[in-house]
């Protein structure tokens, strides 16, 4: 059963728990990387930010007390990431030979954001939700039969009609609908669970 943020954080306090760190990384790397990219960093620099954030969290964890009344984990992670992005941008501005990326890079980074600007939090929240959905999708994919997941992929993501998906997967049309709803229900479950865990004071 995948961990919720608090239980994962508790295990992260044990610096030797490699599995927990791997899980932490898998859960959050896209979020940190894409936030950095959306702030204008090139891929190599965004990877530097990712590594610095993870190692900072690693160093902070043994003393870290997860007290929700002081804020959410996603707020904490945003603060750490913002600081790293700002710090790297300042270093880069001091050495302008290394440029920021401009315009659409094909990964949805059409608009660059100031990591210290008023819309940074909103951008983080958008990416947090996207990341949570991706992580949840990966979890659900492991929970169900491959055909069930394929039925969802084909109809919900690739625009196939239920009839075409049913024919391709050798299922009844009804089974395709049932599979799709099952995946959606599981996605809702994971997203709500993770959000609740992180939001509760």
């Amino acid at each position: 059963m995948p961990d919720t943020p608090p239980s994962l954080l508790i295990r992260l306090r044990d610096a030797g728990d490699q599995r927990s760190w791997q899980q932490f990384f898998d859960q959050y790397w896209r979020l940190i990387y894409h936030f950095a990219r959306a702030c204008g960093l090139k891929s190599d620099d965004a990877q530097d930010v990712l590594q610095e954030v993870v190692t900072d969290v690693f160093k902070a964890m043994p003393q870290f007390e997860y007290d929700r009344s002081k804020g959410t984990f996603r707020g904490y992670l945003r603060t750490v990431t913002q600081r790293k992005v700002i710090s790297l941008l300042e270093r880069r501005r001091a050495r302008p030979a290394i440029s920021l990326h401009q315009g659409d890079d094909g990964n949805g980074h059409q608009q660059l954001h100031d990591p210290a600007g008023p819309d940074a939090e909103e951008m983080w929240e958008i990416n947090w939700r996207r990341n949570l959905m991706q992580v949840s999708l990966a979890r659900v994919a492991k929970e169900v039969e491959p055909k069930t997941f394929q039925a969802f992929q084909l109809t919900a993501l690739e625009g196939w009609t239920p009839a075409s998906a049913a024919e391709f997967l050798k299922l009844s049309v009804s089974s395709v609908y049932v599979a799709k709803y099952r995946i959606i229900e599981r996605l809702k479950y994971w997203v709500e669970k993770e959000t609740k865990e992180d939001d509760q004071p």
Partner: protein
Amino acid sequence: MNNVFSDFELEQYLARTLSPGRLKRLEAVLPESPDLQARLAKLREAQKVEAAVRDSFAIRMPPEQEEEIRKRSVDQISSEFSGHGR
């Protein structure tokens, strides 16, 4: 199932017969059918989840690129961790 329509039967029917505008009008004239209203609300919620899943792919890259970034970062971080007595 106790209800007249199962979810997929209802969606099949709606998909065949109703545009989003007509669906809205149908909902407006069915106040006396809380069960159907609830089912339509459930469908709308499912459509929202589908849209959110599609939107979440904005932070995905081609698998090879993702794997390369992931692996490189893990290697770097592991080496950093090793430097801290692990």
